[in-house]
């Protein structure tokens, strides 16, 4: 039994959610039963991914099998096209898989209040989880694409049916944007498949594809745009505020915590690992985009009146650090970028959960509509302070380390861009503190004289994140050690190809 789990651990992590979701469809329509079973179903992959974490060999690196990839499983799927169920993790996907499986049970907790179409909700949610983990673990390009696309359907309904007042618009906008990106990706994937001899979707083999530089550059740009829509990178970001604001709390958490990382993960996995020479030429371009994201996102966040929209724009700003770190092509920068992906997943999830808590009580999210909440809901206030301080990069909390690493790495290459980006830290601090002041401090708004403090369920969903924020702020080694060899490998690959 144990051996079976050990040998098929990735398959289990990926497919348990969707199988559980199908079972849920056939359970009797009792709300608590469905909630608890979803919670249990999402806890299984989490437990398995802890096993994955424990068994992960932190010393190997490389993008090949046998080689750097671990827990590899390989089964033939469609023989006619050489499509395989080819799964594996390395230092890049391991933290992401961990983040994703960790957030899902917390999101189930945050979805406790859903009562309309509850079966459908949890089925779609679990389907979404399968897609997300699939993207991080797929090493077959076709499987990668299928997982990437499979998320569209649940996401459309989760935003569109269970979302806020403007949900119809947000859902279709999200769908169209993402579909544009993924169809562009599909064309490149097909092209790469056809250029390889023999035809293959195996990503490790496609990485060695020899082709003309012009062709590669074109592929690189198209793929980059496809991923950039998901991140989202500046001109393609407009779907994000709508989708985040209208989505129900748990889905905002997934969007900010996992889906955005998929964009940068895709860039690192595909653009960086498969086209290192083009990446070397394009790094400046990525750095500029990262800088725009940081500054633009931060200024937009500052201008928002709606708390959830503010958090959404802050995500754009924080993803800018990931881009900047990636563009630096130094070990510090890349480590910082991947760590920032993990850290932002934790912090953004926390912020969205906190917004959900306040919205459940006040039924609005206008920042100006509150005041002095700290005096009536002290526990809630403390956790919110922690989250906002983490977001603004207070030393001792997790984001500080990743942002510092990013700036440290980037400064070695782009002095001016990094200097400009660093001002983003100040703007971020400004809007975070200003928000804290307007909501939690000052005179108590009489309307909220009776404001129930955070309850046990909400507290439990926030607690693990809060602990991570503090622990990783002091001792980031558990996550950094996972990614270090892989990051070094990527860095050598790219700087080596540029010479």
């Amino acid at each position, binding site marked *: 039994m144990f051996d079976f789990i050990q040998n098929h651990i990735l398959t289990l992590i990926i497919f348990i959610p969707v199988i559980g979701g199908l079972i849920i469809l056939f359970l009797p329509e009792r709300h608590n039963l469905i909630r608890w079973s979803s919670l249990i179903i999402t806890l299984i992959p989490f437990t398995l991914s802890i096993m994955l974490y424990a068994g992960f060999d932190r010393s190997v690196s490389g993008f090949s099998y046998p080689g750097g990839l671990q827990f590899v499983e390989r089964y033939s799927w*469609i023989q006619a096209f050489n499509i395989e169920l080819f799964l594996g993790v390395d230092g890049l996907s391991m933290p992401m898989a961990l983040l994703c499986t960790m957030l899902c049970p917390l999101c189930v907790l945050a979805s406790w209040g859903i009562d309309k*179409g509850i079966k459908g909700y949890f089925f779609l949610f679990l389907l979404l989880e399968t897609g997300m983990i699939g993207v991080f673990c797929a090493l077959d390009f076709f499987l990668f694409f299928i997982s990437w696309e499979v998320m569209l359907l649940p996401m459309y309904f989760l935003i569109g*049916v269970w979302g806020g007042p403007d949900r*119809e618009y947000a859902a279709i906008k999200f769908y*169209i944007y993402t579909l544009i990106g993924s169809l562009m990706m599909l064309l490149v994937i097909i092209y790469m*498949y056809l250029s390889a001899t023999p035809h293959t979707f195996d990503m490790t083999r496609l990485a060695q594809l020899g082709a003309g530089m012009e062709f590669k550059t074109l592929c690189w740009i198209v793929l980059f745009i496809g991923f950039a829509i998901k991140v989202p990178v500046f001109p393609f970001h407009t779907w994000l505020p709508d989708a985040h604001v209208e989505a129900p709390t748990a889905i905002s958490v997934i969007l900010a915590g996992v889906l955005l990382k998929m964009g940068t993960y895709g860039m690192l996995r595909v653009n960086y690992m498969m086209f290192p020479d083009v990446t070397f030429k394009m790094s400046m371009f990525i750095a500029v985009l990262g800088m725009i994201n940081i500054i633009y996102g931060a200024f937009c966040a500052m201008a928002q009146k709606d708390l959830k929209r503010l958090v959404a724009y802050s995500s754009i700003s924080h993803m800018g650090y990931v881009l900047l770190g990636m563009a630096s092509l130094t070990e510090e920068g890349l480590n910082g970028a991947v760590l920032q992906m993990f850290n932002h997943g934790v912090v953004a999830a926390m912020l969205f959960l906190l917004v959900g808590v306040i919205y459940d009580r006040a039924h609005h999210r206008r920042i100006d509509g509150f005041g002095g909440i700290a005096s009536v809901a002290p526990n809630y206030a403390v956790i919110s302070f922690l989250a906002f301080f983490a977001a603004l990069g207070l030393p001792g909390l997790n984001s500080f380390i990743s942002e510092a690493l990013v700036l440290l790495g980037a400064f070695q290459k782009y002095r001016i861009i990094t200097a400009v980006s660093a001002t983003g830290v100040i703007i971020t601090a400004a809007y975070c503190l200003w928000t804290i002041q307007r909501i939690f401090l000052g005179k108590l708004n009489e309307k909220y004289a009776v404001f129930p403090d955070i309850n046990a369920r909400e507290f439990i969903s926030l607690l693990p994140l809060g602990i991570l924020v503090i622990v990783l702020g002091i001792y980031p080694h558990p996550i950094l050690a996972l990614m270090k060899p892989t990051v070094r490998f990527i860095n050598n690959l790219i700087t080596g190809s540029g010479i």
Partner: protein
Amino acid sequence: MGNLESIRYFAPEGFLSVFIITFLIAGLLRRKTFSKSSFSCIAGTAGLFLTLILELCINTGYPDAIVIFSGMLKLDALSHLFKILCISSSILLFLFSYSSRETSDSLKEPMEYALLILSCTLGMMLLVSSSNLLMMYLSLEFLSLTAYMLTGFTDKNEKASEAAMKYLLYGGAASGIMAYGLSLLYGITGSLDYSGIHRFIAENNSGIILYISMIFIFTGLGFKIAAFPFHAWCPDVYEGALTPFTAFLSVGPKAAGFAVIIRFFYQIFTVRGEGDVLTVLGSADWPAMLAIISALTMTFGNLAALRQKNIKRLLAYSSIAHAGYMLMAAASLTILGIVSVFFYLSVYFLMNFGAFLVVIAVSNEFNSDEIEDYEGLAWKNSKGAFLASMFAVFLFSLIGTPPFAGFIGKFYLLLSILQPENPIYWLAVVAVINIIISLYYYARILKTMFLSRRQKGTALSGFERGQYLQYSLMAGLALFSIIFGIYWSPLNNISMLLENFIH
């Protein structure tokens, strides 16, 4: 092969012809029994099932083709597979008519209805295997005439008569032009037989006149598959005709039309060279023509569908768009292109029939085909949720989202158009843009059913005992749409029979 020898290869069609005559005589003798629409439908289904079994058992001579009746008909993988597809769609038409309240109420002469469907099937079977210009033209006309009659086969609404009239007029004009094209082709080559024409073109240079005749002939074929600019009949006919027949019209005759297009262009005007590379034979660059028509067809279909309020019209325009996607593969001039057309048609068979079945079920409830009546369907009761989820599966498949079969179909089409020997990049980009446009109107139906919280007043009845056939058909089609989206090797292996279609 001589006529007498040919008869045993003609068993399915022969059986169907005998069955039609028997059906007619029996129907006249026992008018009362046959005037029950359930009886006629079941009898017709039984006949088609036997035909299907015969077709499955018969020796197609694969991988070698068998030419029967002195070159009139050709039995090969193409005719075999498309015949199966056409017979299956006729069977579904019977089952749909049987389970639809619309047809059982408004059919005054079910015997004649069944008879026409059977004749229509015979027409399609002959059409997909014909390898002679005359035979092709006659079976095309046979198919069209029965289709005109079936379109107007209800006195319930005036739209049906109008649609039938329009269909007839357009069809008459199209086939007239086509006949002119055929006569030109005959004039150039002096042969009606496909292989004879092929031989003549390989040896002689025929100049611009070949191109002209090809365009004229394509008018008739394009009319059958509703390609732009020969599509104008399509929305009116789809809206006016009985919904089961509309569903059939969007799949069966369209499949037959594609079979003719493939046979005509790939058997006469194509040479298979070294390493399975296909090249155009003759002076006419037909792949370019098909590529342009394909781009226009899909773009027009999708743009026109954006503003439709009636679900049947919307699906009509969407079927125009899908014809455009399939033409793309037909224009690819690769073997995979032929395979892809069949693969896509099989997938399209599942999802389009499924979508129309939901439309039938809903219009039986509300007596309406307006999209606004679908509002909040998913939240009305368990039947509403069932219908809406089924519709969602078919619509997502039509959009081309994994894990549904429609995505795999589009994957094949894009793969065939990007084949290294003859890639048409611009068409792939046009197709991708079109898929994005199509998302918008399909999602609008989804939005109406699932997202809007307002509910129209009309109540929905629960599951009915008499309708279980309908529900299980729907679930079956949906199930296969999902299965082929996840594991499509069986369908791939069947489609790959077409690999050796060109020698």
